[in-house]
């Protein structure tokens, strides 16, 4: 636990010292909201009874969490390729703490970004709603989702031999996950086959929860079911990461 905390705090220190990473992470959501969001809402107006900016903010949160997970994997990959992981491996700390420290810093950064998106979204006219319980639920959903993808990214990062290889693999599941979901358009309007893909896509469950609990929307899927799917996804992702990581250090 203490080692996890140490590794987490190291990543956070590096994060706040690295102005490129910080700036990139700040700008990305701002651009999504300011350019894509504002443009699309001028085009579309209202979706399912809610303002389009409100409708798509959960999608931007999901996208950002995905980006955060990819970044978290990059940090592990870099520590692996540059040998920094050896410092951990010869230290008297549990192997698991290396992975947990990484997942923890990834989630922290994603939540940090989520906060910025909400502020920027509000500045551009989005009106999040919901009570405290609702927001806690939304937070939990976002954490589970980020953990799941951080797990996938860490699993890939445990095996990749190069940064290029890593990005190639990550790209395969990054954008399709956003497009084949309810992030940008309502589930009901999707053709059958995409809806099927969307239903095995964890992004769909996160967005449905976020809309229902924090963005004036209504759930199109049972909430508890969505939470269960996200929990399953988080466990599956982290398990994959653990298996990949164990192999990598053996």
């Amino acid at each position: 636990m203490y080692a996890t905390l140490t590794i987490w705090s190291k990543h956070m220190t590096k994060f706040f010292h690295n102005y490129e990473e910080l700036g990139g992470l700040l700008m990305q959501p701002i651009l999504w909201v300011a350019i894509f969001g504002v443009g699309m809402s001028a085009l579309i107006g209202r979706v399912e009874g809610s303002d389009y900016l409100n409708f798509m903010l959960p999608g931007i949160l999901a996208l950002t969490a995905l980006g955060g997970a990819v970044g978290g994997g990059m940090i592990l990959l870099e520590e692996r390729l540059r040998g920094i992981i050896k410092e951990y491996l010869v230290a008297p700390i549990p192997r698991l703490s290396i992975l947990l420290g990484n997942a923890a810093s990834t989630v922290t950064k994603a939540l940090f970004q989520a906060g910025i998106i909400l502020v920027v979204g509000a500045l551009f006219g989005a009106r999040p709603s919901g009570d405290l319980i609702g927001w806690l639920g939304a937070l939990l959903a976002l954490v589970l989702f980020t953990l799941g993808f951080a797990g996938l990214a860490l699993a890939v990062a445990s095996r990749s031999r190069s940064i290029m290889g890593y990005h190639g693999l990550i790209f395969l599941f990054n954008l399709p996950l956003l497009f084949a979901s309810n992030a940008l358009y309502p589930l009901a309007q999707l053709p059958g086959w995409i809806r099927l893909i969307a239903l095995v896509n964890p992004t769909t469950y996160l967005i449905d929860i976020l809309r229902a609990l924090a963005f004036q929307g209504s759930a199109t899927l049972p909430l508890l079911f969505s939470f269960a799917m996200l929990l399953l996804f988080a466990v599956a992702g982290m398990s994959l990461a653990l298996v990949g990581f164990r192999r990598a250090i053996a």
Partner: protein
Amino acid sequence: MAGSIIVARGLSRRYGSIVALDGVDLNIAEGTVYALLGPNGAGKTTLINLLTTLMLPHAGSAQIAGYDVVRQAAQVRRLIGVTFQELILDRDLTGRQVLDIHARLYRLSPALRRQRITELIALVQLEEAIDRQVKGYSGGMQRRLELARGLMTEPQVLFLDEPTQGLDPQNRHAIWEYLQVLKRERGLTLLLTTHYMEEAEALADVVGIIDHGRMVVEGSPAALIGELGADVVRIVGSGDTAAFLEHMRAMPYIGSITHDLEPGAIMFGVEHGTRRLAEIIAQAHRNGFTISDIEVRRPTLGEVFLKHTGVTLRS
């Protein structure tokens, strides 16, 4: 053996079908500076990886301070410090952060961390740079920081894999000086790999020469050099080398013959080199070997190495 802090028995490791380490035994007494010498690919780093619990052996066993490196890896990790062959530093952190985070992984208290950092940056002379980011450090400063990091936890055994690789002579000598201070003042046990002969000669109590994954010879530098004879007569020339060497081998005063193929030099280990000079020249002449250069000198660890591995290590 009583007092042994590093013990290995038949330590072996393969990579696929390549045998990197082939049954190495070690017995290193506490407080010893042990230098592992060997050509590239000899198995030095593999041996370090096994002893520092980074890798599992395929055969054999090893103990550090009585703890098995496989079954009691956690205890071993608590006792050792390691610096690796490549520079392993977070370039975005300051030197102080690097040291502090490292010590936190070992659960040192904040007060102890502060105290050790102050002591160690004085030792490795990084007081001025310690609050700057590592990316601005020179290679020598990074090595010094790594050395300080390895010492943060006051390890009982410090492993240094090529601690001065790529450093200019000035920085190399600085690192040697720190290591000599540590040896003198703390009685630290040190296992280092190097392919600099002067490094082994300057630091080591015991030298182990490793080649093709096997320990070829082990001993104090003085004893190893002594085995070659009191002097070395080094000849460079051309002609019927085979006949000349054949003939020389039969001479009773020749202790050892080594042949360095690359510059075409031949080394004879002899007692009283200057007295045998005339005779050696005469023998060369008689056997159709033309001498272009000849010298008599005290043997070095380099010649010991050449004798046992058949290759020269170049600094």
